[in-house]
């Protein structure tokens, strides 16, 4: 047993670190590190820089222009990027739909969509959840009816992350309602510019526009946009889950937030002394730091295992989000009364108004409320626990 990274992995980390340090635009890093508002261009710029370097698709095979990195390498890459304040590469195209197209897509889907995903020409959204189908995804109702060389799509998706930027959406749709619910689902690639597609914002607790409702009213989608076979959508969706494992623990990002929390707590005063020296507060920071240390090793154990990660990888989702949420909570509490002021305008990078309290206070409570989402999306933490109980513990 050796819990150290190999020489090659160390060298790889150094290479990633210096590339990201030297090429990540300072304005973008500044936004991420200070919780300022990101706009479409920020993600696209960073993804195009990675694309030029050949690093935008760590998980893809070489034949499609990916890096084919090992899981450990992918983790090192995620960790360095997160730590240095890179925006998260938008997963919907690169991490989610691309592997499905690679495995189950037609020749033209591969030739047409994959290069556009690599180059960030298309922005993809994930169209799974519906108002009546969240945790119980297989009950989804959005219909696609085959008519000649088209599918006619009717229904509604919801909680669509950054759907306002997207021009493409991959949807689970019901093509057969006479069979078992999982077997009547198909996987459809939909151009959001088609007539009948409407996107409406949902404003979240921090008053940000990050999620949307997407309505489909008689939308004619070319049949060639069906991935694989009709009725196999559920199988493809589950295959996709296996591709979301790395990065789900967000270790790099949490390390960065932990460091920032400590820096903030060293400046904030309690009884005239730095908050970080207050035993009550310090013990809570230690508690989260210990969890994060354990999480990192748990993640590496999963990634190093010779078999594909199984349902026990749900631990990473649960603990990863616990740690992220605990960090936002402590950061908010570190502000004391300056957690109250709510100034969304101060989160615009170009804003130069008069601050209220320390600069880092402007986003603390908003981020705390925003991060409540992490234990809800991507399969809620209750659903993750159900998975472990049933599939791992055999209960």
């Amino acid at each position, binding site marked *: 047993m050796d819990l150290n990274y190999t020489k090659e992995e160390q060298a790889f980390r150094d290479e990633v670190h210096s590339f990201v340090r030297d090429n990540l635009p300072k304005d973008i890093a500044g936004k991420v590190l200070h919780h300022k508002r990101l706009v479409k261009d920020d993600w696209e710029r960073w993804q195009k820089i990675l694309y030029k370097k050949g690093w935008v698709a760590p998980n893809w095979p070489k034949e499609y222009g990916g890096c084919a990195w090992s899981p450990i390498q992918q983790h090192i890459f995620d960790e360095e990027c997160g730590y240095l304040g890179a925006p998260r590469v938008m997963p919907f195209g690169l991490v989610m739909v691309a592997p499905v197209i690679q495995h189950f897509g037609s020749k033209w889907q591969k030739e047409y969509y994959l290069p556009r995903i690599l180059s960030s020409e298309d922005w993809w959204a994930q169209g799974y959840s519906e108002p009546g189908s969240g945790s119980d995804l297989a009950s989804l109702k959005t219909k696609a009816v085959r008519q000649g060389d088209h599918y006619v799509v009717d229904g509604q998706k919801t909680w669509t992350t950054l759907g306002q930027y997207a021009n493409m959406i991959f949807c689970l749709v019901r093509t057969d309602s006479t069979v078992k619910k999982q077997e009547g689902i198909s996987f459809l690639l939909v151009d959001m510019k088609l007539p009948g597609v409407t996107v409406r914002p*949902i404003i979240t607790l921090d008053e940000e526009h990050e999620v949307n409702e997407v309505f489909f009213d008689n939308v004619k989608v070319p049949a060639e946009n069906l991935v694989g076979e009709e009725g196999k959508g559920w199988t493809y969706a589950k295959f996709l889950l296996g591709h979301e494992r790395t990065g789900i623990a967000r270790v790099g990002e949490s390390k960065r937030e932990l460091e920032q929390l400590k820096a903030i707590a060293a400046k904030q005063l309690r009884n005239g002394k730095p908050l970080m020296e207050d035993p009550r507060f310090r013990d809570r920071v230690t508690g989260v730091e210990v969890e994060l240390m354990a999480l990192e090793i748990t993640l590496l154990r999963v990634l190093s295992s010779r078999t594909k990660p199984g349902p026990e990888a749900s631990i990473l989702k649960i603990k990863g989000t616990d740690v992220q949420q605990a960090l936002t909570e402590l950061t908010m509490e570190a502000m004391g009364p*300056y957690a109250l002021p709510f100034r969304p305008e101060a989160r615009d990078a170009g804003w130069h108004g008069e601050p209220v309290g320390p600069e880092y206070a402007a986003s603390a409570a908003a981020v705390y*409320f925003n991060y409540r*989402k992490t234990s809800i999306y991507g399969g809620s933490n*209750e659903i993750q626990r159900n998975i472990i109980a049933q599939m791992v513990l055999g209960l």
Partner: protein
Amino acid sequence: MDFIFSEEQQQLRDSIQKFISKEYGFEARKAIIASKQGFSDKVWAQFADMGLLGVAFDEAHGGFGGSSVDTMLVMREFGRGMVVEPYLSTVVLGGSLIDLGGSEAQKQAILSEVAQGKLLLAAALGEPNSRYELNCVETSAKRDGAGYVLNGHKAVVLHGESADKLVVSARTAGAMRDTKGISLFLVDKKAAGVAVQGYRTIDGMRAAEIRFANVKVGADAVLGEVDAALPLLERAADFAVSALCAEAVGAMEALNAATFEYLKTRQQFGRPIGSFQALQHRAVDMMIHCEQSHSLALLASIKVQSEDPNERKRTVSAAKIQIGRSGRAIGEEAIQLHGGMGVSNELAAGHYAKRLAMINATLGDVEHHAERFAGAA
């Protein structure tokens, strides 16, 4: 022991409940928050008519001669309705500072105006470096002939922008953290040298940074004893904390009710999600959190009147610790059990969670009161 409200108290409660359900629904509240001043003059006038603005003041000062229990009762209903009007700052905190520390002339001049809804107050106590310590006062008040000159910066003054008069803590002697040497001043917000930077708070209220640059006040502006205002400040702050605890209990009750209703109606996997035992136990814990909070909020509303400052501090801090912890737990669980709907700003649930989190951050969080509790043992 008697945990039953009197008939008048029940009537008071019923009238507030009726008002909120009729005129202070989620949409009405949203429009009020979006308005320029962030609260409604009309609602404020109705509160005056209902007798809420003078509920705890003496009849001699235009009040209704009620007790801290009446204040608690009002705040609990305001918690349920997430009322954003400046009741805490004007009536509870500002009002009690004057009621407890003012001269007869000051009470006559101010309390009846407050009770009639004609005068708004705000207490400017915190400072950029004071966190929750009332004794940490850098703002200075220097003698100037018969009066004083004030200089300094007061932080996160609740409803500071809309207030007509400010109660300001300032140092007349000693060093920044000394318990002696603090005095209170009544300052007209329009006085020359007062600069107000107002802003929204994340829970739908308003607050302000207020800077004082050579603000002159007369000798009659002093509230209470010169150099010795800290005990008065602490007493009024404890009264406000006990009121906040009652508000939190109201918010918890409403949030729990909304969440339990959601568990019964939201269907997944062909059944109400409330049929999943994993969620049932969480709901039960939310209910227990609320009951425990209610118990200590009741105790605080009585003991806040105690003549023994240690007993008062211990009980009020205990209640604030309990509601801080329980408010956090209930707020987070309510959002989680609502799934995606919990993070939508269109649902009341998340707004209750915001208010509960900010109540913890107001007048001392769990850690502040944990230390104070231990010190008052």
